[in-house]
C-alpha cells in the first residue's frame, strides 16, 4: 500500500474497530441517521414524483412555448425638442391576424435543436350550433402530424378517431354532451365573418381540462383558415422543448429570433409554479432540519465516545500517533455513521416508496432515481464528517499526559 491510502488504512482500521467495540452505540446512531435519511429520501421522492406528475399533466395538454403575433400598438411620434407632450391614448383592439411570413419562421424553427416540435396553428372564436343549441367554441386548425407532437391527441380520444380535413372535425367531450352529439353527427360552425360550415364529427376527445373539453373544435388547417377568414395564415406557432424548465429562457431566445411574442408554459402557469416552488421550499426546510438533527446526533455520540476513549487516545499518542491521525480516526467514525445510516435509510425509503406505489392511493407513481440515493449518501457522509469535526478536534487536542493518566 502506498501514499495517502496506505496512511489512511491505519486510521480506518482503528476507527472501525472502535465502532465495532461500541457496537450497540454505533448501531443506535446509525439507525438514527437511517431514519433521518429515509425521511429525507421519501419526502424528496414523494414531492418530486408529485411535481413531475402535476407538470406532466399540465404540459400534456398545452405547448411548452406559444409564439403569437406581437400586439398591435399605436405609433406615437416623439415630441419635438423643448416641447411637452400630453398623451391620451386608447389601446387598440387586437384583431385576429396572421403571423407574417410564418412558413419561413416555421422552417427556421424546425432547424433549432433546442426545440423538439413545431406546430403552426390557426385558432379563433366561433359558434357551434345544432338545432336550437348554441355553444361558443374555439376553432383550432391543425396539421395533425405536427400537432400530435405537441399534444398527443390520439391518447385522449374517447370515441371515433382523430381525423380532420374533408369536413371532418374532432370535438371535446363536454361540448359533445352540451350539444348532444355523437361521432357521426353533423354540426354547424359559425364565425362572425359571415362564414359557416357544416362539419362531420369524426372523433370526440377528453383531455381532462374543462376549458378545452367544453370548447375545442379541431379542424384541418385549410378549413379553419377559411372559416376564420385568414386564408393561408396562422395565428399561433406551438413549440415543445426538451428541457421543460429551460422553457422561459428558450422562449426569450426564440422571441428575439422571430420578433414574435413568445409565452412559455412557466409564465402562463405562474400560479402553479408558485405553488410548486413553495412546496419545494417546505421540502427543503424539512431536509435541512432533519439533517441538522442528524448532525447533532452524530456529534453528541462522538463527543461521548471521545471522553470514553480518552485513555486509548493517550495510548495511541504515546505509541506514535500524531494529532492529525487522532483527528482522522474520529472524522472517519463520523463519516461511517453517515454512510452506514444512509445506506440503511436508503433501503428503508426504497421499501417505503415501494409500499406507497404498490398499496398506496395510486394517484401517481413515485420514482426513486439512483441519483437521489447517491446524493443522500454523499450528503449524509459529509454531514457525518462535519458533525464529527468538533469532537475530533477535541480528541486531537487532548494532552497525551493527561489522557494516559485518565482512568
Amino acid at each position: 500500500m502506498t501514499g495517502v491510502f496506505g496512511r489512511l488504512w491505519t486510521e480506518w482500521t482503528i476507527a472501525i474497530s472502535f465502532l465495532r467495540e461500541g457496537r450497540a452505540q454505533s448501531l443506535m446512531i446509525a439507525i438514527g441517521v437511517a431514519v433521518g435519511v429515509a425521511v429525507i429520501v421519501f419526502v424528496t421522492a414523494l414531492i418530486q414524483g408529485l411535481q413531475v406528475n402535476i407538470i406532466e399533466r399540465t404540459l400534456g395538454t398545452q405547448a411548452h412555448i406559444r409564439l403569437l403575433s406581437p400586439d398591435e400598438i399605436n405609433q406615437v411620434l416623439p415630441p419635438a425638442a423643448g416641447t411637452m407632450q400630453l398623451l391620451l391614448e386608447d389601446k387598440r383592439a387586437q384583431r385576429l391576424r396572421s403571423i407574417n411570413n410564418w412558413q419561413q419562421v416555421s422552417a427556421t424553427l424546425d432547424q433549432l435543436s433546442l426545440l423538439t416540435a413545431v406546430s403552426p396553428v390557426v385558432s379563433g372564436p366561433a359558434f357551434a350550433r345544432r338545432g336550437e343549441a348554441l355553444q361558443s367554441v374555439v376553432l383550432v386548425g391543425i396539421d395533425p402530424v405536427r400537432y400530435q407532437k405537441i399534444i398527443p391527441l390520439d391518447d385522449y380520444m374517447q370515441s371515433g378517431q382523430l381525423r380532420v380535413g374533408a369536413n371532418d372535425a374532432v370535438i371535446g367531450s363536454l361540448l359533445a354532451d352540451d350539444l348532444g352529439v355523437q361521432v357521426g353527427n353533423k354540426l354547424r360552425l359559425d364565425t362572425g365573418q359571415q362564414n359557416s360550415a357544416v362539419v362531420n364529427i369524426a372523433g370526440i376527445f377528453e383531455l381532462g381540462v374543462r376549458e378545452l373539453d367544453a370548447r375545442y373544435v379541431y379542424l384541418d388547417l385549410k378549413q379553419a383558415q377559411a372559416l376564420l377568414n385568414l386564408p393561408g395564415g396562422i395565428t399561433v406557432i406551438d413549440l415543445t422543448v426538451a428541457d421543460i424548465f429551460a422553457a422561459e429562457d428558450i422562449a426569450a431566445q426564440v422571441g428575439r429570433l422571430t420578433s414574435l411574442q413568445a409565452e412559455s408554459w412557466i409564465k402562463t402557469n405562474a400560479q402553479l409554479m408558485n405553488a410548486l416552488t413553495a412546496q419545494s421550499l417546505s421540502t427543503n426546510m424539512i431536509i435541512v432540519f432533519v439533517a441538522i438533527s442528524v448532525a447533532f446526533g452524530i456529534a453528541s455520540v462522538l463527543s461521548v465516545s471521545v471522553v470514553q476513549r480518552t485513555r486509548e487516545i493517550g495510548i495511541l499518542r504515546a505509541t506514535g500517533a500524531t494529532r492529525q491521525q487522532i483527528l482522522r480516526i474520529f472524522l472517519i467514525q463520523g463519516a461511517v455513521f453517515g454512510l452506514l445510516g444512509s445506506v440503511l435509510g436508503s433501503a428503508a425509503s426504497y421499501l417505503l416508496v415501494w409500499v406507497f406505489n404498490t398499496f398506496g392511493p395510486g394517484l401517481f407513481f413515485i420514482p426513486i432515481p439512483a441519483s437521489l440515493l447517491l446524493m443522500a449518501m454523499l450528503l449524509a457522509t459529509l454531514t457525518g464528517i462535519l458533525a464529527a469535526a468538533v469532537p475530533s478536534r477535541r480528541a486531537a487536542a487532548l494532552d497525551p499526559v493527561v489522557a494516559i493518566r485518565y482512568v
Partner: protein
Amino acid sequence: MSDDAMTVLRLEGLRKSYNVGQPNEIEVLHGIDVVIGRSDFAALVGPSGSGKSTLLNLLGLLDQPSSGELYLLGQATSAMDDAARTALRGSSIGFVFQFHHLIQAFTALDNVLMPLMLSRGKPDKLAVQQARELLAAVGLEKFANRKPNELSGGQQQRVAIARALITEPALLLADEPTGNLDTRTAAEVFELFHKVNRERDCAVLLVTHDPRLSAACDRTINLVDGRIESDTLNQPASQQK
C-alpha cells in the same frame, strides 16, 4: 559537550512547572542534569510525588519542559513541533505504563503492531513476522489472537513490552511497570526488561517503588522533591550470574 554514539539521552537543567501563570503555579522539577547511555539499565526511584512520572513523560516527549534542554540521540527537542516530536517518539522510544495500557479493541498481535501501523500504515508480512517473534520473546506466542481482556495482568504487561520493542527503540521507558502485578509476576516482567536490555541494545529506564528491583538494576537514580539526590552504580549482581 557533544553526544557521542554511546549516549541516548542527555538532560540539561530540565525544569517543569505546572499551572504556569496561575496563582497555584508549582515547579515540580528543579533543574535535572542526567545522561543515559546506550546500554544503561537504570532505575528511577524516589518518594511518591517527587516527580518521577513527570520526568518520565518529559523524557518520552509526551510533555514539554518549562525550561532546559533534552537531547535525544543527539537532537535538541525543545524547539520541535508536535509532528516532529511524535515522529521521534515513535521511532526511538518505547513506553510501558503501570496499567498495561493496551487498546481493548485489538488483539495482542495488533497491539504489538500498533506503533508500526501508526508510522507506516498497513503492516507487511515482515512486520507481522517481527511482531510474532516479539510475542514469542515475551512468552506469548500462543496468545497472539487474544484480546487484552482475555489475558492476565502479567500477560498484558508483556504484550505492552513487546509493543514498546517493535520499533527497535533506543530507549525503553517504563513507569511502574510491575506496580500492578504480584511479586512473582513482577519478577518475571522485570527479568524480561533485563533481557531486553542485554539482548536488544536498548537502554532501559524504569520507575519502581520496589527496592529489590531497583537494586537489581545497574544504576539507581534517586529523585527527591524534584532534584536528583543520588545517582549510583550498583554492584552488577545480575552480570555475575
